[in-house]
C-alpha cells in the first residue's frame, strides 16, 4: 500500500528545526516563498517504505500571534492547508519555554507529535525528562531524538505516519485562563457559535481567545465578516480589560499567557522533569560568554571575527572569481573567433557574455559569504554580535545585526553590496532590516574603489591615504544618517522589540552549512541571472544604437585604408621586402587610434550618448559634462563600467593601461579640477546602486517599489550632495 501524507514541522528558533529538516529530507528540498511575503517556504520529501511524507518547514517562531510575517504565515498555513500532523520540535534543555508554542497548537486542536530534541545535551546538563509522562499529560505522542546524529528520527516519522493515518478531527484543548477570562470566553464563544462567526475557518473558542488577545488579523477578518457581532465581542473584551487593569494591573493577553505557562508548569511538576544539578550551574556556553561578551575582550574578538568574515569572503573567493573571469574571457575570445564581425558579435560579447559573466562573477563571493555567515549563525555567535552592538546601532534606528550587512557591503572598503543586502536576512525586525538593506549600498564596494583610486590619484595625489580613509568614514556616516532619516520618514515606527535569545554555542554541522550555502546561492543565480541578462542587453543596445551614419563610417574606413597603404603588412608586401618592427608597431598604434576615435564618436552618437548630452542641461549644476553622464549611466549596470565608458568617451582604450592614462588625461584637461572631481566622486559613491544590487533589494524587500525607491532616492540624494559640493567649492576654488 502506498500512501501520501503532508505534515508541517514547527518549533522555536534555535530548537534544531533546520537540522531535523535537513536530516529528514537531505537534498530533496525545495525552497520558495510564501505568496506575497518574503518569508521562505521550505518543502521536502521523506520516504518511509511505501509512504511518501511531504514535509513543510514552517518558519521558526516562539508564538502564534499576528505580530510578525513569520507567525502569520505559519498560522495561516496550519489553518488553511490543514496538514495532517504537525511535528513540533522542542529543545529538551529548554522544555518549559518551548512548550509555550505547543500549548498554542493544542488550543488550535491540530494533531501534534512532539520531537524532543537534543536529549543528549539536556542529559549533560543533568536534565532528565520522562517522555511517557509528558505524552500522557499533554495527550500527544513524544519521541526523543537527536537531530544532529539522526537518532530517533525514524521512530519519529513512524509515529507521525501512525498519527496521520488516524485522520483525527481537530480537537481544540480547553486550558483555563483564570476565572475572569474563562467566564468572558464562555460568553464570547456562545455568541460566536450561535452566529457561526468565522467558525468555517477557525474553532469557536480559538476565535474568542484571539479576540481576548487583541489579535489584529482575526479582529479585522471578524469585522469584515460581521461588523456588528465583532463590535459586540470587542465590547466584551474591553469590559474585562478594564476590570483586569483596575483590579490586578494586568491585561487579558497577559493573563492568557501567564496561564499557558501555568498549565505547562503544572504538567512539568508532576514528575516529568528532574534536575540533577543546581539550576544555576554555569555551562560551557556561559563560560565562553564570560570571555566573548566581556567588556574589553568581547569587542576586540568581535572586530577580529568580522574582519575574518570579510577576509574570508573577499580574499578566499578571489581564486574561483578569477577562474570564472578567465572562463568568460575564453568564451568571449571564442565568440570573437567564431562569429563574423558585426552587431550579432557585439551583442553576444558585450551584451550576453558580459552580462551573464557579471552575475555569475558574484557567485563565489556569495557562496563564501553565506558559508561564513552560516558558521556565525549556526554557532550562535551572530546573536552575540547583535547583543554587543545594539546600543550603538539603535541610535540610528537600526539594531546590532545591521553591522554585518554594512561591513560586507564595503564598510571595510572593497566589499560588495550584493552579499551585503542578502546578509540582512539575519535581521528579524522588518523595519530595521529595510533601513539596513536600503543604506548598505552607500558603502564603498570593490567596484567603486578603482574609480576612487583613479580620481584621488589624479587630483589629490599628495594625500591619497587620507582621502581614502575620509571616503570610508563618510560612507558610514552617510549610511547611518540616511538610515535614521528613513526610520523617521518612510520606515517610521517604534523600534521593534529586541527581545533576543542568545542560544548556547554549538558546533555547526558541515551538512547544514553546505545545504544552507547552496540553497541561498542557487536562489541568487536563478532570480538575478534572468533579469540581469535582459538589463545588460538593454544597456548594451543603448550604448550601441543607433550606429554611426554611413558617411562617418566610410570616413573612418578610408583613414584605415590610408594607414594600411602607408604601412603595408608583411603578407601584402609579397616577397622579401622587410618591414621593421617599428613600422609594425606604428601601424598598429595608428589603427588603434582610429578605432578609438570611431568608438568615441559612436558612443556620443548612441542612445546613451544622446541622453548624456540631454542631461547636461541639469547635470551642469554639479559640474558633469556629457562624457561623465554616459559613464554614470553605464555605471548603473555595474560600477566597473564607469571607468571603461569614460575611457571610450575620451577616445581612450578601456584596458588597464588606458586607466592610467585616463587619470593623466583628466588631470591635464582644463575642464576638470579638484572640485569637479570631488563632486563626481561623491555622486558615484552614493547614486543608484548597480542593477544586481537593485534586483537583490527588490527581492529581499519583496517589491519592485523598493528597488525603484533605492534608485531614485539614492540618485537624488547623491545629486543634491554633488551640487552642494560643486557650487560651494566653485566659490572658493
Amino acid at each position: 500500500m502506498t500512501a501520501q501524507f503532508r505534515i508541517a514541522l514547527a518549533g522555536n528558533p534555535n530548537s534544531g528545526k533546520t537540522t531535523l529538516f535537513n536530516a529528514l529530507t537531505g537534498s530533496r528540498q525545495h525552497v520558495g516563498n510564501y505568496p506575497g511575503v518574503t518569508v521562505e517556504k521550505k518543502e521536502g520529501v521523506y520516504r518511509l517504505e511505501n509512504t511518501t511524507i511531504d514535509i513543510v518547514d514552517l518558519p521558526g517562531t516562539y508564538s502564534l500571534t499576528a505580530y510578525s510575517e513569520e507567525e502569520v504565515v505559519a498560522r495561516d498555513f496550519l489553518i488553511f492547508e490543514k496538514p495532517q500532523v504537525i511535528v513540533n520540535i522542542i529543545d529538551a534543555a529548554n522544555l518549559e519555554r518551548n512548550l509555550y508554542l505547543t500549548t498554542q497548537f493544542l488550543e488550535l486542536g491540530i494533531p501534534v507529535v512532539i520531537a524532543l530534541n537534543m536529549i543528549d545535551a539536556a542529559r549533560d546538563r543533568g536534565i532528565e525528562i520522562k517522555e511517557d509522562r509528558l505524552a500522557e499529560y499533554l495527550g500527544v505522542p513524544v519521541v526523543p531524538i537527536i537531530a544532529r546524529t539522526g537518532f530517533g528520527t525514524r521512530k519519529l516519522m513512524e509515529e507521525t505516519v501512525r498519527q496521520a493515518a488516524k485522520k483525527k478531527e481537530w480537537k481544540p484543548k480547553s486550558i483555563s485562563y483564570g476565572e475572569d477570562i474563562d467566564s468572558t470566553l464562555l460568553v464570547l464563544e456562545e455568541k460566536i457559535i450561535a452566529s457561526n462567526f468565522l467558525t468555517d475557518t477557525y474553532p469557536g473558542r480559538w476565535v474568542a481567545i484571539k479576540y481576548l488577545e487583541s489579535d489584529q488579523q482575526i479582529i479585522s477578518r471578524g469585522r469584515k465578516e460581521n461588523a456588528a457581532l465583532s463590535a459586540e465581542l470587542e465590547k466584551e473584551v474591553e469590559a474585562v480589560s478594564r476590570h483586569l487593569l483596575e483590579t490586578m494591573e494586568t491585561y487579558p493577553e497577559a493573563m492568557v499567557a501567564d496561564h499557558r505557562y501555568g498549565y505547562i508548569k503544572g504538567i512539568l511538576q508532576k514528575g516529568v522533569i528532574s534536575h540533577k544539578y543546581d539550576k544555576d550551574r554555569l555551562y560551557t556556553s556561559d563560560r565562553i560568554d564570560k570571555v566573548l561578551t566581556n567588556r574589553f575582550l568581547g569587542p576586540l574578538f568581535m572586530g577580529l571575527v568580522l574582519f575574518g568574515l570579510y577576509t574570508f569572503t573577499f580574499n578566499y573567493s578571489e581564486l574561483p572569481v578569477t577562474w570564472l573571469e578567465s572562463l568568460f574571457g575564453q568564451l568571449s575570445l571564442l565568440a570573437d573567433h567564431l562569429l563574423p564581425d558585426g552587431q550579432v558579435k557585439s551583442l553576444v560579447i558585450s551584451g550576453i557574455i558580459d552580462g551573464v559573466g557579471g552575475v555569475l562573477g558574484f557567485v563565489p563571493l556569495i557562496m563564501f559569504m553565506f558559508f561564513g555567515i552560516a558558521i556565525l549563525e549556526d554557532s550562535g555567535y551572530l546573536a552575540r554580535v547583535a547583543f554587543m552592538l545594539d546600543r550603538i546601532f539603535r541610535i540610528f534606528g537600526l539594531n546590532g545585526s545591521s553591522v554585518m550587512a554594512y561591513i560586507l557591503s564595503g564598510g571595510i572598503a572593497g566589499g560588495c553590496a550584493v552579499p551585503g543586502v542578502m546578509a540582512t536576512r539575519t535581521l528579524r525586525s522588518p523595519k530595521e532590516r529595510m533601513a539596513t538593506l536600503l543604506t548598505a549600498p552607500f558603502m564603498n564596494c570593490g567596484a567603486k574603489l578603482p574609480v576612487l583610486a583613479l580620481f584621488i590619484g589624479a587630483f589629490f595625489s599628495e594625500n591619497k591615504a587620507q582621502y581614502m580613509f575620509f571616503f570610508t568614514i563618510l560612507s558610514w556616516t552617510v549610511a547611518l544618517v540616511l538610515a535614521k532619516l528613513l526610520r523617521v520618514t518612510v520606515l517610521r515606527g517604534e523600534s521593534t522589540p529586541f527581545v533576543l535569545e542568545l542560544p548556547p554555542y554549538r558546533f555547526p554541522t558541515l551538512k547544514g552549512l553546505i545545504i544552507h550555502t547552496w540553497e541561498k546561492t542557487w536562489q541568487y543565480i536563478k532570480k538575478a541571472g534572468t533579469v540581469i541578462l535582459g538589463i545588460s542587453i538593454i544597456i548594451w543596445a543603448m550604448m550601441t544604437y543607433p550606429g554611426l551614419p554611413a558617411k562617418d563610417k566610410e570616413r573612418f574606413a578610408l583613414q584605415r585604408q590610408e594607414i594600411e597603404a602607408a604601412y603595408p603588412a608583411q603578407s601584402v608586401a609579397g616577397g622579401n621586402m622587410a618591414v621593421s618592427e617599428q613600422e609594425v608597431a606604428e601601424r598598429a598604434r595608428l589603427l588603434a587610434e582610429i578605432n578609438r576615435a570611431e568608438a568615441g564618436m559612436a558612443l556620443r552618437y548612441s542612445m546613451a550618448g544622446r541622453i548624456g548630452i540631454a542631461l547636461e542641461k541639469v547635470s551642469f549644476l554639479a559640474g558633469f559634462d556629457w562624457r561623465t553622464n554616459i559613464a554614470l549611466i553605464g555605471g548603473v549596470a555595474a560600477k566597473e563600467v564607469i571607468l571603461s565608458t569614460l575611457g571610450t568617451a575620451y577616445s581612450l582604450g578601456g584596458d588597464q593601461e588606458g586607466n592610467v592614462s585616463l587619470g593623466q588625461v583628466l588631470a591635464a584637461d582644463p575642464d576638470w579640477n579638484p572640485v569637479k572631481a570631488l563632486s563626481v566622486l561623491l555622486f558615484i559613491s552614493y547614486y543608484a546602486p548597480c542593477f544586481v544590487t537593485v534586483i537583490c533589494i527588490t527581492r529581499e524587500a519583496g517589491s519592485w517599489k523598493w528597488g525603484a525607491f533605492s534608485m531614485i532616492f539614492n540618485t537624488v540624494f547623491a545629486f543634491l550632495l554633488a551640487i552642494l559640493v560643486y557650487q560651494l567649492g566653485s566659490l572658493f576654488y
Partner: protein
Amino acid sequence: MSRMMLRNMRKNQKGIITAVKKNGELGRRIRDMGLVPGTEITVQGRAPLYDPVALRVMGSVISLRNNEADFIEVEVQP
C-alpha cells in the same frame, strides 16, 4: 526581599518576576520568552555599553534592552 525594576538589578543578582506591565507586541515578545510572573531570573551580564542586559531564564539566555526591562518588576533575593 525587595521589589525593583529589572533595569536596576546588578550582575549575578537573582529574583522572581512579579509583574510584566506591558501589552502589545513588546509585552507579547517578553512573555514568549518565558518572562512571566513567577519565573526565576538571574542577571547574567550586560553588553559592553551596559545595554542590553542578558538574563538567564528557564535554562536559556535572553537579552533585552534596558528600556524594555523597565516594564518588568522583580522581587530580588538578598
